[in-house]
């Protein structure tokens, strides 16, 4: 990491009002620094202030919270001024993916709408251009038939697919830093690896900085947080280096096993696998708008709203 970090959180403290009228100091003295293109893990048990620290950077703390310390993103002070500093970069340079894709996507808005609304907002581009970018991004996160996916709704996708959509939506606006808040915790174990691999690939391809929040050290090592990790406990942080993540030393890990002729061939990558795709939703032929309107009036009217 050369020069000033992209995001630096210095001596952050957050206190929240409690039900009995007092205040609880939820975060104290947390320091995090993330350089350009770097991945940093933020780990800790639940309730140790990981998510709150991230929300503070976005200026999305619950009302009544008071803060101390500094959050600087690319030379810009994010806290203070009533959160106006964060509002300028939120969604545009600084994106966030939430823990539970089942609830983080709006159930009543189409995937396309959710992929493009902030694009139109931030980049001042037309709907068609935004659609093009969104479709490309859906393809990048390996959503099958991205064009059709745009017209569908979150409940028509599985959990892993929804998290891919959420990631695509966060990255569509071309942010420089992605905050991933427990992106795999709510997912099936078999899906987790795919999401983690996706984040790592996107980071490399898009030269993205990533702040990975997790309570799972295994996730951190799988993502190769070889750079740095910060551990939080009871609202305090300790910076530590994960020189060689302990999990990868595990002798069961295929990656660490010496390659030899005797060892079984590497598992095929997901893309190359010859598994037939299950077409869960019927695909409509690409027909004229009015014919589409006749076919499903409810969907047509909804798409105008």
């Amino acid at each position, binding site marked *: 990491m050369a020069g000033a970090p992209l995001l630096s959180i210095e001596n952050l403290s957050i206190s929240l009002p409690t039900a009995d009228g007092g205040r609880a100091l939820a975060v104290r003295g947390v320091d995090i620094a993330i350089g350009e293109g770097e991945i940093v893990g933020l780990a800790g048990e639940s309730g140790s202030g990981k998510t709150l620290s991230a929300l503070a950077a*976005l200026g999305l703390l619950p009302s009544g919270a008071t803060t101390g310390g500094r959050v600087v993103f690319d030379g810009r002070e994010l806290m203070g001024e009533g959160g106006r500093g964060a509002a300028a970069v*939120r969604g545009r340079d600084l994106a966030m993916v939430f823990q539970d894709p089942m609830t983080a996507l*709006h159930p009543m808005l189409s995937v396309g709408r959710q992929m493009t609304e902030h694009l139109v907002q931030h980049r001042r581009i037309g709907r068609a251009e935004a659609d093009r970018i969104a479709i490309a991004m859906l393809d990048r996160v390996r959503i099958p038939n991205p064009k059709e996916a745009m017209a569908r709704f979150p409940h028509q996708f599985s959990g892993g697919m929804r998290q891919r959509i959420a990631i695509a939506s966060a990255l569509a606006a071309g942010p420089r830093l992605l905050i991933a808040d427990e992106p795999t915790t709510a997912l099936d174990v078999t899906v987790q690896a795919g999401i983690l691999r996706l984040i790592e690939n996107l980071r490399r391809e898009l030269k993205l900085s990533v702040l990975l929040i997790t309570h799972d050290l295994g996730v951190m090592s799988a993502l190769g947080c070889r750079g740095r990790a910060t551990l939080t406990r009871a609202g305090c942080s300790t910076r530590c280096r994960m020189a060689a993540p302990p999990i990868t030393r595990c002798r069961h890990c295929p990656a660490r096993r010496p390659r030899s002729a005797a060892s079984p061939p590497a598992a095929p990558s997901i893309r190359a696998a010859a598994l037939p795709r299950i077409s869960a939703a019927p695909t409509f032929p690409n027909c004229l708008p009015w014919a589409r309107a006749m076919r499903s009036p409810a969907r047509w009217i909804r798409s105008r709203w």
Partner: protein
Amino acid sequence: MSFLRSAWYALPNLVRFVIRRLFVGLLLCLGITLVSFALTQVVPGDPVSANLGDRAASDPEIVAAFRARYGLDKPVPQQYLLYLERLVHGDLGESQQTKRPVTTDLAQYLPATIELATAAMILALVLGITLGVVAAIGRDRWPDQVIRVISLAGVSIPTFWLALVTFYIFFFKLGIAPGVGRLNPGGKAPPSITNMFTIDALLSGQWTTLGIAASHLVLPATVLAIYTVGSITRFTRAAMLESLSQDYVRAARAKGLPERTVILRHALRPALAAIVTVAGMAFGRMLSGTVLVESVFSWPGIGQYAYKSALALDLRAIMGVSLVVAAIYILVNMAVDIIYALIDPRIRLG
């Protein structure tokens, strides 16, 4: 048969849904005629004495003629079947009060009430949703407190009292509101198209009449709306608080959307689903509850008609009113379900 079946499933969901619901609604209406007919038989009181004067009622010949004219001399089941037979031909019988076919009476009085109730409903929705959203955003701060008082007052003030007081203040004291009725005294009604004066005036381009009819509508519609404003406000506030705390609203904020978009698109939309249901029920209640407002403002609507018919034991009129109000209620509920499905893609009609 299989041809019919595949043709049925080739129809769009929405059309299938409407057809099915209309069929069920028809059966419901049939049940309602049975119930209302049965009720008219068991209520104490005799239509003869209610409609004829003392002298006429004591003359057996006149009584017999009256009974024969309205079919009251036949056995009860036969009366019902006769009623149904006429109903199929669009004949609801003759009102003993007005001596006119009930359908003619309904065509005259029902549009006045629908006009009033619709105006009130629009007002209640606009005001209620706005106040509810404002209250939810300013939760536990002064806007919320003020709105809480307003909505509480709205649901607790008796409608007829409010009608009298507002009429007294705005008509007698301030002179802002026009007098009673749908038009100024001696005012000429616009050409009869829908019998909703505002709509008719609009359709025939009579702008002065439109202004007069609309100004006469304001006060009664507001009074009628107040209760619903209160309940919709409270419902909207609760539904908004619920949706504002959802993850997807936080995600929308994290995407950097302006607060207006977050509230109106992401938070209000799920709340609307709940509001529509409340509004549908409120509309039904308005239709049946207009009688007090109609009496105070001399609004010649179906509430007054039903009230007078009930006093006179005008059986055909009472049954006609129940049937029409029930049909409207069924249609409104169907509309609510359709709107619900439009708002929420997870709901499937059919």
